[in-house]
């Protein structure tokens, strides 16, 4: 990871919506064409800016869920009730629409296959987005790096990218995906049924000696709980990177 990389000037660019994919009943992925896009690393985010006809503007941050290998940039957006931006993006936006975008932003929370350490990802809800960019990058590069995703969702219907994750895991012996459904489970569900706790982490984990790179992304309460537990389990705090998603569901 190059720590002295120069920042690019973050200019606003135009993003055009090419395709919209429904992920769950309140989550959609927006596939964007951004002419002149310079590329990104998995884990980074963008700021988007919407301008209404009367000049009113709103700005939000969203993580990029597509890997650097994709031609189109994907943002995965969860609709927040009473939100100002996400209901527009999820309910009103159509292919052909446009908005302003700047990025990529934030080299701190990134992962690339140019590493030797195992990858441990822990996500809550729609905060899976930047971690999915990491897993997709890993899959595209066919990297044999051991990887583990622990993904907490309210119910099976809320698991974003469920089929893609199942397919990834079934074709890749080095990838393990562990779901936990905290509010509602389908009949016959044999998986976890509670919030991520010490037992769950001890059950699906890498050992501190394996020196995993750990990324935790979710609501602040999940991130803080999980981070403390990981440190209790002996993991180096410097190996744990967190991205707290605020109440709006996006990274800020």
């Amino acid at each position, binding site marked *: 990871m190059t720590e002295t990389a120069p920042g690019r000037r973050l200019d606003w660019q135009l993003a055009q919506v090419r395709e919209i994919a429904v992920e769950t009943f309140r989550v959609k992925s927006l596939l964007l064409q951004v002419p002149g896009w310079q590329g990104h690393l998995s884990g980074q985010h963008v700021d988007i800016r919407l301008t209404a006809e009367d000049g009113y503007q709103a700005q939000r941050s969203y993580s990029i869920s597509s890997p650097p290998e994709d031609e189109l940039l994907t943002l995965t957006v969860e609709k927040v009730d009473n939100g*100002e931006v996400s*209901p527009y993006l999820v309910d009103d936006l159509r292919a052909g*629409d*446009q908005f*302003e975008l700047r990025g990529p932003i934030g080299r701190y929370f990134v992962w690339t296959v140019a590493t030797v350490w195992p990858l441990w990802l822990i996500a809550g809800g729609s905060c899976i987005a930047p971690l999915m960019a990491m897993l997709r990058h890993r899959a595209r590069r066919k990297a044999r790096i051991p990887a583990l995703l622990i993904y907490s969702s309210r119910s099976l219907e809320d698991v974003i990218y469920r089929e893609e994750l199942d397919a990834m895991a079934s074709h890749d012996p080095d990838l393990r995906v562990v779901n936990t459904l905290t509010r509602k489970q389908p009949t016959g569900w044999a998986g976890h049924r509670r919030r991520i706790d010490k037992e769950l982490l001890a059950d699906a984990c890498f050992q501190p000696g394996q020196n995993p790179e750990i990324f935790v992304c979710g609501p602040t309460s999940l991130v803080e709980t999980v981070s403390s537990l990981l440190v209790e389990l002996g993991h180096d705090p410097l190996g744990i990177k967190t991205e707290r998603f605020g109440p709006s569901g996006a990274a800020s």
Partner: protein
Amino acid sequence: MAETPISRGFKSRRAEQTPKDRLPPGQYVTTDFPVLSAGPTPQIKVESWTLALQLHGSLLRKWSWAEFEALPQTTVKTDIHCVTKWSKLDTTWQGVTFGDLLKAVGLTDPPEPYIMAHSDGGYTTNIPVADLVDGKGMIATRYEGLPVLPSHGGPARLFVPHLYFWKSAKWVRRLQFMETDEGGFWESLGYHNYGDPWKEQRYDGD
């Protein structure tokens, strides 16, 4: 300069819900009570809580929690306006007015024209005394009849609702009279020195 691209169909959802005569410009009504803090919430025990009134370096009076609660209580129902654009209507607060604090200390005239409020955690904000007297400002200890939650500034916060809510310093512990006006935390970093929502004084230069 290129025109900013318009996003088809996007508009401020909040603009539709506002009763215009009640709201300062640029605000929208919320039924939530958003929390915004410049630092972690201090966990303050009322047994060790004190409120100090200071003139320059010297202490005019210090109240313990029990002494403070024994002062005349005032209840107000009013609207509050945050510089981040949300407004909350008809909120009820109870506490001790600044005027009653002055009376308790035997001051009929404030000794200096400005106050700097100091809070646990290091937050500060400056307010002209003229904006605190005559019922305009109080130290509030109850919101909607219940003790103010720590995340909202409890056990006691400054409450100056006619100015943007960053002036209503949470976790207030010290009120210091100043001879000249000096900016507090946000005022020293580009926010407006006075902060009148009706004149939309959000930032320095507005």
